[in-house]
């Protein structure tokens, strides 16, 4: 993972206002070093959470839905709103016992949301989050 790169915006040039010749002007650049530091820090947090979730899935403490939720930076309530399911049901689905009993319809919703197949979910395959798949032009 390219976390050690100085610029984590995939080479996107952004505009910021900088003081030049005593006046503030828009200026195109690759981002300011401190910003990249704190951005990387935030992503490190996300990646730590994903790693923790992976371990818990492997240990059988939570279902693979927990991994997909964490990897896509969601909370149970946000996931519930996206999947159009009540929050308590989503929280149950995060447990392996209830996840094995999830209805086909719910599984289809989750799969569509995360861009994976229902079989990925039932087989417990952990695929990369939405934002790491191929980028369109």
């Amino acid at each position, binding site marked *: 993972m390219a976390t050690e790169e100085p610029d984590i915006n995939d080479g996107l040039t952004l505009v910021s206002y900088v003081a030049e010749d005593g006046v*503030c002007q828009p200026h195109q650049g690759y*981002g300011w070093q401190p910003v990249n530091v*704190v951005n990387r*820090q935030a992503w490190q947090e996300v990646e730590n959470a994903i790693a923790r979730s992976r371990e818990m899935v492997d240990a059988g403490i939570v279902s693979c839905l927990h991994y997909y939720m964490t990897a896509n930076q969601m909370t149970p309530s946000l996931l519930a*709103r996206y999947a159009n399911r009540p929050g308590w049901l989503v929280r149950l689905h995060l447990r392996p016992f209830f996840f094995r009993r999830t209805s086909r319809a719910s599984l289809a919703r989750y799969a569509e949301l995360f861009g994976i197949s229902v079989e990925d979910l039932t087989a417990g395959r952990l695929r990369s989050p*939405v934002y*790491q798949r191929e980028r*369109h032009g």
Partner: protein
Amino acid sequence: MANLCPEAFPHRQSAHCESGVVSNLLRREGVEVSEAMAFGIGRGLFFGYLPFIRLNGLPLVTYRSVAGRIIRHFSKFPGISLQQKTFRDRRRAMVELDEALAAGRPVGLQTGVFWLPYFPRALRFHFNAHNLVVYGKAGEDYLISDPVFPAPVRCPAPDLERARFAAGALAPRGKMYWFQITDELFSPRLHIRAALDGVCRAMLGSPFPLIGVRGMRFLAGRLVRWPERLGHQRTILHLGHIVRMQEEIGTGGGGFRFMFSSFLRESAELLADRQLRAGAERMMQAGDEWRGFAAMAARICKERTRPGDSCLALAASLRSCAAQEEAIFWELSRWCREGR
């Protein structure tokens, strides 16, 4: 990128999405308003520390007014009318978007950034108050002028639909808007004084201790106690979060203070006013102080501290920002009253 028909929409990259969209949409209608001017007369500048609102478990710090405020202020100006729609039905929302495009009318959309595939990975958080302009359709792809990108981009229809109906805080509900110019004589210079007055009141006159200059001082007081209250690890996360809100894309740097300085300078030229020019210069110095604050906070986050870097020093820097801005806004509010 091929056939994006850039001549169809006057795209100009900007630092902040909302002021950028307003500026670009108005330019399409033949009214020249720069991004900084849009930010200024839209009363974009603000400060608030709202620890009871949590983002990923971290307190909300905002350096600008709430999302959608700039657009709303513009809709109140005589000579400009704003048409705005939100939707319940996703299909209806996309159909109306297609109809607007077929009629040759570019529209602004509020979207979430998480679902937009053209965004770099690093910026794809669940943030739902992003603004962009859709100006055309090619096959199944929409042609988008996203103000924070250097050039127009394409986005597949299903992704755009999902982004328009992102869930969570500030859910856009497919919001779509466009401006109509009803008076050819609209000029931003008529609104500078009222806008400045509004910003000054928000920054100085709030009865709540978490808002404006008082909010900065409040945050400074809190910040000093973070190491003992939260422990080292959480303190670092909190500091990083403050800096991200301040310097992350869309702010133009210095927590919007540089952009506001640019607005003051432009106003000074429009109104040929010396006092505003001085205000612009001092606002720029305040922005520099903010940047110094961010740089020190980032050094602490990275544990590459220089001598003198500590939470105490950070708080002192923040208080100095507050003092500078307080002086500036008092000066400006006096200017506003004099001119009436």
